[in-house]
């Protein structure tokens, strides 16, 4: 295994799903079994990525492999340097781990879909869309430059559009698809501008070259503020794609797509691309930019968590939970807990995919019923689904011995340490509150779905455990939600290989003065033996270390408390949740109506744009054209006056120039009376006037 073989392997993994997409799309209509082609390609891709990950992590642990080629060369440019745009891929540990994650989830979702989508009239088309998605997602993961990042960023947007709108006969589905695409575009504009800013300064899109330039002190527009602006602009892309506040509104609607799609795209992988992107550009994020990111992350963690508490649609609950968890990761990046952000990304991918597939299993067996108030008691009918769902929920809630516990604890420790170092304690506060809320709404969902008595007898009778193809992915994913894959010590994630040797906090390129205080290099002590991991500085590492056990205890307790509350309200019915809601009506309504984001956006932006476009269109027809066309009213009156005019108007003489011309013409016609004496009179008059002028 040499480097070039690894690169070729990575490229193969990248393009395999594309081949699957093309073949399945073109011939899927004729050849019914073609979805197996797509599936086997995914199996192959998964195996290859496992091989790739193994060799990269073992043989080239500390190396970053880059391969690029010249894509566009604008020649020798006068006054400036040359502009050469390279495309290429980069392999580091994060990349291979991410590839592996994507391929695992993608493969499992493929397999699950074989059962779930059975009987759909566009069965093969569905798989081809999954293929293009996988391709685009791998592209995001593999790229070594911002341009390709943007390209694949848009392509996942496209596949998301296609898959959300897969059942386009439903208006809600096509609406949701459109909404997802457009809302994402808002973020993309920011990201695009950010990329432009960087390209303007560095004339390159490649990460490594940009990082190097920044580390030499060459900043966008020459100021640290420019760097911050660039960072925040790039982050806009993540806001859109990772459905962060205030652009989170598309994700709940995106649940109109088939459930496996929700699992793959809108929970595990694509929405995490925003986080991944932030991880990629982390070295250039200045302190101010990070603070913005952390704030957005905190808001996104908190608001959806409060909404999830009152939702009745099982997928909506999971969707809001996804936003909330993504908020966690974003917040983690903002507070500098780089490694935990990625770690949570991976663990979340598995358990959230598990949850979605589990809910898919439920929905499938309930004949596409998603409303939890109509479920209940499914525990007996679907034990396997129940258990896997439970395990994944525990992981999501951050209960010890799960992967979620490890990663979430790390993030909370990061916020805690951040608070202690900078005084911004509210990130930690938000983190803990959300941990409580998460546990509460997840177990509310479990209880409403699986516990208690069935609310809809008829559907309940028909419900049955899912087939093997659907059950198997659930089992795998719930297994991946347990702690031992990541660290053998269930209470300390740093003991696993993943965090101790594979994922390293990168070198920061930002100038010292623009960093957080605790990220400055002069504080650094290279003393590997004392600590599991060396991050930016001694103080930060120390602070995290100290925060570890307090947060561990607090978060576990809060999660358990949340579970307890859920049981109190929904299982044991000590308090009637409805009455409780009645008492807190304003808050309940706010949460139930998703903080009215959709309504506000619709009333302001959507209606505003459409209104503006109508005005412009009117303006175009009536005014701009009117300037040339002459006012309609006047034309009408005039045509009545002359009679003939109307004919000519209908003939096409409606524009103002011709209109004025017509007036002129009519004016001149007046002189042509047909009486020769009048003519002579005119001649004599004109002569007198001319004589007067030229006397």
């Amino acid at each position, binding site marked *: 295994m040499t480097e070039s073989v690894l690169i070729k392997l990575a490229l193969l993994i990248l393009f395999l799903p594309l081949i699957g997409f093309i073949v399945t799309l073109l011939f899927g209509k004729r050849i019914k079994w073609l979805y197996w082609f797509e599936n086997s390609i995914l199996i192959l891709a998964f195996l290859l990525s496992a091989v790739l990950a193994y060799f990269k992590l073992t043989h080239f642990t500390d190396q970053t492999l880059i391969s690029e080629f010249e894509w566009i060369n604008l020649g020798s440019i006068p006054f400036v340097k040359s502009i050469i745009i390279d495309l290429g891929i980069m392999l580091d540990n994060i990349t291979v781990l991410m590839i592996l994650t994507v391929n695992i989830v993608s493969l499992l979702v493929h397999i699950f879909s074989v059962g779930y989508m059975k009987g759909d009239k566009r069965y093969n088309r569905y798989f081809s869309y999954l293929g293009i998605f996988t391709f685009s997602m791998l592209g995001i993961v593999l790229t070594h430059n911002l341009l390709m990042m943007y390209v694949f960023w848009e392509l996942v947007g496209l596949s998301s559009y296609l898959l959300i709108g897969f059942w386009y006969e439903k208006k809600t589905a096509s609406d949701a698809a459109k909404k997802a695409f457009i809302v994402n575009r808002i973020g993309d504009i920011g990201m695009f501008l950010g990329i432009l800013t960087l390209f303007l300064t560095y004339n390159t899109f490649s990460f490594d070259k940009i990082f190097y330039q920044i580390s030499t002190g060459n900043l966008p527009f020459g100021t640290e503020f420019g760097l911050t602006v660039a960072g925040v602009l790039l982050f806009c892309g993540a806001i859109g794609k990772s459905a962060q506040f205030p652009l989170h509104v598309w994700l709940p609607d995106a649940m109109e797509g088939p459930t496996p799609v929700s699992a793959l795209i809108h929970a595990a992988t694509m929405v995490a691309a925003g986080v991944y992107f932030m991880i990629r550009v982390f070295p250039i994020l200045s302190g101010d930019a990070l603070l913005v990111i952390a704030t957005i992350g905190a808001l996104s963690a908190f608001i959806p968590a409060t909404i999830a508490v009152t939702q009745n649609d099982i997928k909506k609950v999971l969707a809001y939970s996804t936003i909330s968890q993504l908020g966690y990761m974003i917040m983690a990046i903002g507070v500098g807990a780089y490694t935990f952000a990625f770690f949570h990304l991976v663990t979340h991918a598995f358990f959230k995919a598990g949850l979605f597939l589990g809910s898919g299993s439920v929905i499938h067996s309930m004949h596409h019923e998603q409303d939890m108030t109509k479920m209940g008691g499914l525990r007996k009918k679907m034990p396997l689904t129940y258990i896997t769902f439970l395990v994944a929920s525990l992981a999501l809630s951050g209960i010890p011995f799960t992967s979620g516990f490890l990663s979430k604890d790390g993030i909370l420790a990061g916020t805690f340490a951040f608070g202690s170092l900078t005084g911004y304690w509210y990130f930690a506060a938000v983190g803990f509150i959300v941990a409580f809320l998460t546990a509460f709404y997840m177990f509310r969902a479990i209880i409403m779905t699986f516990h208690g008595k069935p609310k809809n007898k008829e559907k309940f009778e028909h419900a049955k455990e899912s087939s093997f193809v659907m059950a198997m992915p659930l089992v795998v994913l719930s297994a991946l939600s347990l702690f031992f894959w990541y660290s053998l010590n269930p209470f300390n994630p740093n003991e696993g290989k993943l965090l101790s040797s594979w994922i390293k906090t990168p070198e920061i390129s930002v100038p010292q003065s623009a960093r957080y205080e605790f990220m400055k290099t002069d504080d650094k002590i290279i003393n590997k033996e004392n600590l599991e991991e060396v991050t930016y500085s001694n103080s930060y590492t120390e602070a995290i270390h100290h925060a570890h056990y307090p947060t561990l205890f607090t978060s576990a307790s809060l999660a358990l408390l949340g579970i307890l509350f859920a049981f109190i309200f929904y299982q044991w019915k000590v308090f009637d949740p409805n009455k409780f809601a009645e008492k807190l009506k304003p808050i309940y309504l706010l949460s139930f109506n998703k903080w009215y984001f959709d309504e506000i956006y619709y009333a302001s932006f959507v209606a505003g744009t459409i209104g503006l476009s109508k005005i412009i269109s009117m303006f175009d027809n009536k005014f701009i054209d009117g300037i040339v066309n002459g006012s309609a009213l006047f034309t009408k009156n005039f045509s009545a006056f002359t009679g003939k005019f109307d004919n000519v108007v209908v003939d096409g003489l409606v524009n103002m120039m011709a209109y004025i011309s017509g007036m002129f013409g009519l004016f001149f016609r007046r002189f042509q*009376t047909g009486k020769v004496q009048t003519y002579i*009179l005119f001649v004599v008059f004109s002569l007198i006037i001319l004589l007067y002028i030229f006397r």
Partner: protein
Amino acid sequence: MINITLYHYLIVSSVLFCLGIFGVITRKNAIMVLMGIELILNAANINFVAFARYGNFGNSGQLAALFVIILAAAEAAIAMAIVLNIYKTFTNINIDEIDTLKD
């Protein structure tokens, strides 16, 4: 006895010219209009002769007047023929009723 100078002639010719124009514009009868034209031509003739006489320009003025008189006759003949033709088709020679050709 007043001395008749060039200016007297010029005044006469100007009056004649104006009368001619006036006649052309106001008369209804085509014949009268043609007479107006003759007046205009004769006003010019008076000018030619008077200028030649008073300005010592030789006999070119008189010559010009002769030509004009001949042409006036020719023009009158042609015009009369045309008026005759009009009378045949319109059965009147009232000039302001002949206005079928107009915008």
